[in-house]
């Protein structure tokens, strides 16, 4: 008797739970990730012969932040005769964005730290865009409070680093790490952009973050988690492969009193959008450059551009596939970014939603709330941008997973990951859109400072992607784009 009842009791409890899980239809799919065009270029497929020839002094290949910034610089220097060729049907690169009836949302990069006084180019751009006026930052662009929270021990707690120092020893190690960062900052070599200070080699670049921690006697699991999280967040790589120099750069290059970061619902898409609107007439989307011949002849399926200079702002690894160039020796981290549209906020324990929401010991990076910068007091529907790097796999394995795993399986894995913190999340989400970034960002692995940079072999073919810096940051992309524009201007 008792046994029979008991089995039904558990069955009934399961029924209550299961009903919620299976009832709700889930919409969505993979967003266009340009994978097939990319593979056609890689596989040197045959392309139609362009039907027309256009002469233009400068061609910019790639409309990510580097390419757009090169265009921005050319315009500001009075050069208006150029084109920007973008492989995909959306410009912006890692600053691409999406929009639905609930909110705009990022497809990758979602913030820029408030630039310090030495980051003059970034400051100049933000002055152009109205974000910085008379030395004052537009307060609607500075990330609203509360900025971060961490799900740990069954509840959300405020901040990322402040609360995970649980024991006295943890706190002492966090303090000691802060001192290391201060000392690193004082050396002046950890700058943004890196070109202003980074040395060609450094003892710190001969070891991984993990090795550096061991060498310095850091053993706190909380600190180790935090640094690994930082590496996965900024580089998509684990602490065990990331160069200690790059790991320290993450902390030491930022301003100690950052009132930001700067962020918008669509993330860095807001910046991309503003740049695109200034460059619209010169921007050609869905124009994959499949070949660059000597003499600055740039081939797309419908047009051959005959230029006097080329700025190659696409990821450098593409170069050897489309022109006579050596293979770039860079490694790239793949990423998966999912945008979850929520009809209501899920249940949770602890402090309320922040901008950046991280789950302790999750393989993913958590999620960012796209409506966080919304001025309304009452926000009923929202979009969460979920970030998954694959630091625990080699990039090749992770890329194969990205190509082979179905949308439904990704959705399930996202629910499983976030479900720990939000048990009824499935009930709240009406759609999940996923973008697979096969080569999202360059990895600053051990020894990256000394890696040879690819060059175009001529001063009029200039590489400009942020991968030249070894770290995929907005500021690096902008710096490389501007520097390439300046070099080309000097040559013409």
């Amino acid at each position: 008797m008792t046994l029979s009842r008991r089995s039904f009791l558990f069955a009934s409890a399961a029924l209550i739970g299961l009903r919620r899980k299976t009832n709700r239809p889930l919409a969505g799919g993979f967003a266009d990730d340009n994978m097939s065009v990319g593979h056609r270029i890689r596989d040197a497929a045959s392309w139609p012969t362009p039907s027309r020839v256009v002469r233009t002094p400068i061609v910019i290949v790639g409309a990510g932040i580097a390419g757009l910034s090169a265009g921005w610089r050319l315009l500001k220097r009075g050069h208006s005769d150029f084109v920007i060729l973008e492989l995909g049907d959306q410009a912006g690169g890692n600053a691409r964005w999406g929009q639905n009836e609930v909110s705009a949302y990022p497809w990758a990069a979602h913030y820029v730290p408030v630039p310090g006084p030495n980051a003059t180019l970034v400051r100049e751009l933000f002055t152009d865009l109205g974000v910085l006026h008379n030395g004052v930052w537009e307060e609607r662009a500075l990330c609203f409070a509360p900025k971060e929270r961490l799900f740990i021990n069954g509840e959300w707690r405020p901040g990322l680093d402040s609360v995970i120092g649980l024991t006295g020893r943890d706190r002492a190690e966090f303090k000691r790490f802060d001192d290391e960062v201060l000392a690193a900052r004082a050396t002046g070599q950890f700058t943004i952009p890196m070109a202003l200070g980074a040395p060609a080699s450094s003892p710190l670049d001969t070891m991984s973050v993990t090795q550096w921690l061991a060498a310095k006697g850091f053993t706190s699991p909380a600190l180790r988690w935090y640094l690994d999280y930082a590496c996965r967040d900024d580089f998509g790589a684990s602490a065990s492969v990331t160069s200690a120099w790059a790991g320290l750069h993450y902390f030491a290059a930022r301003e100690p009193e950052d009132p930001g970061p700067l962020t918008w619902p669509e993330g860095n898409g807001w910046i991309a959008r503003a740049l695109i609107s200034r460059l619209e007439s010169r921007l050609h989307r869905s124009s994959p450059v499949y070949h660059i011949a000597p003499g600055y002849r740039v081939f797309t399926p419908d047009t051959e551009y005959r230029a006097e200079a080329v700025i190659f702002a696409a990821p450098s690894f593409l170069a050897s596939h489309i022109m006579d160039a050596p293979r770039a020796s860079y490694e790239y981290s793949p990423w998966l970014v999912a945008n979850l549209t929520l009809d209501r906020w899920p249940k949770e324990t602890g402090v309320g939603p922040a901008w950046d929401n991280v789950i302790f010991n999750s393989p993913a990076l958590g999620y960012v709330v796209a409506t966080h910068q919304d001025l309304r007091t009452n926000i009923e529907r929202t979009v969460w941008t979920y970030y998954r790097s694959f630091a625990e796999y080699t990039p090749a394995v992770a890329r194969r997973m990205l190509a082979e795993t179905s949308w439904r399986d990704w959705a399930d894995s996202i629910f499983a990951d976030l479900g720990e913190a939000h048990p009824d999340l499935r009930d709240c989400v009406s759609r999940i859109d996923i973008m697979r970034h096969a080569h999202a960002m360059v990895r600053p692995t051990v020894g990256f400072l000394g890696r040879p940079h690819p060059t175009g072999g001529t001063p009029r073919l200039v590489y400009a992607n942020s991968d030249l810096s070894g770290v995929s940051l907005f500021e690096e992309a902008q710096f490389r784009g501007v520097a390439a524009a300046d070099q080309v201007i000097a040559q013409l």
Partner: protein
Amino acid sequence: MAFALFVSVLLIAACGLIYELVASALASYLLGDSIMQFSTVIGTYLFAMGIGSHLSRYIGRGLVARFVSLELLVALVGGFSSTALFLAFAYTQSFRLALYLLVGAIGILVGLEIPLLMRILRDRFTFKDVIASVLTFDYLGALAASIAFPLILVPRLGMVRSALLFGLINAGVALWATMLFKDTLGGRRYLRAACVAVIVLLTMGMVGAERVTNLAETSLYADDVIFARTSRYQRIVLTAWRNDLRLFLNSHLQFSSRDEYRYHEALIHPGLAAVPNARHVLVLGGGDGLAVREILRYPSVDSVTLVDLDPAMTTLFSTHPRLVALNGGSLTNRRVHVVNADAFVWLDRNEGMYDFIVVDFPDPSNYSVGKLYTTAFYRLVAKHLSQNGYVVVQSTSPMFARRSYWSIVRTLGETGLTTFPYHAYVPSFGEWGFVLGGTRPYVPPESLPSGLKFLTADAVPELFEFPADMQPVVAATNHLNDQVLVRYYEQEWAEINR
């Protein structure tokens, strides 16, 4: 007869499971932590059933009559279980004790049912058939109940009525048993009368179920609840005791009709009476229309725009007779234009200029409302302020939340407006703070509209004097990117609230 008996097994199995689910779900609903509640309630219940089964051996003769009485007991205790739990939560400090006592009692009674029934059936069927059939129908009943509970009962009937309905089913089974076993029972008419009495009682419970949930809420408030509604944005509760009408939003007191005039006269007149010929007035928040009532005392005012997020609030205060009497029908006045919108977004998208702006939001107790107390918001307000105009901000208590108050004053001053902090005593709230902002020096009004109950022109300058315990303290400016005010407010009120 056999089939009828086995159907009754199915029914009592369903009833037993429902009481358990009701107790678990109600405990989860009221206490949170559903895993803990389900787990402990199920454990207690099963253990009590074991006790019941054990006790069944002490029941000797007159099995059928005992079974009927038992069913009636289960019907009463189980049927009224959720009612009892609601009331225990509302009126007593020991909800958990009541919960486990009740779960234990129902468990013991339910544990007695099946052993008794099996013994009744033993004489009529072979043992193996009894075991097989009783357990089969027991399983079936449990399945039916467990599916019906989340899908039909809770959404359609609610907790109180679901339990009562299954109480009625238990009582029905008892009544049915008195008919099936007419021969065995002989002339025991009183059993049938008892069945009818229990059914009547439970039916009355069904009719009055609505009041139980209300009753539970009433006890959270000191006075009678005369209106309660959950809108999209908040829980609106109105209570009355004699002439005292009180409004609670999310259980925070917004006003008491006995002294709200002090608050609203102090909010409006020091500022508005000092603006010569104010024509256009904007009220942000204040969906109760009480600030508007004060504004309408000025004949020079052509238009009042009231922006409040919640249409449920403005509709309630435009239609409820007692509330309309209180605000003088201000919200339906032809000079008044009501807009239901988020104030921040509305200000951002509209161009109008106003001679007097009233900022009357709930206190900055969280990051959402906190946005309406930031430099970004006040800059926007200042952009809508005419040359000679003033803005007034309700700014929590300078006495209980001193740092919060002076942080609001500083934040408003950060927008370039000159600030003029003042305060007034409102018995329901205590010492309450306001701050005026404008681009010109403040000169207290020489006269105030007639008909005021609290303020006189002579008394206005005194409001701007702060005694020693409310003097300015160092407090940071409140920005969107730090919201220091929310932390100040949390800390300061945490020290006062018990």
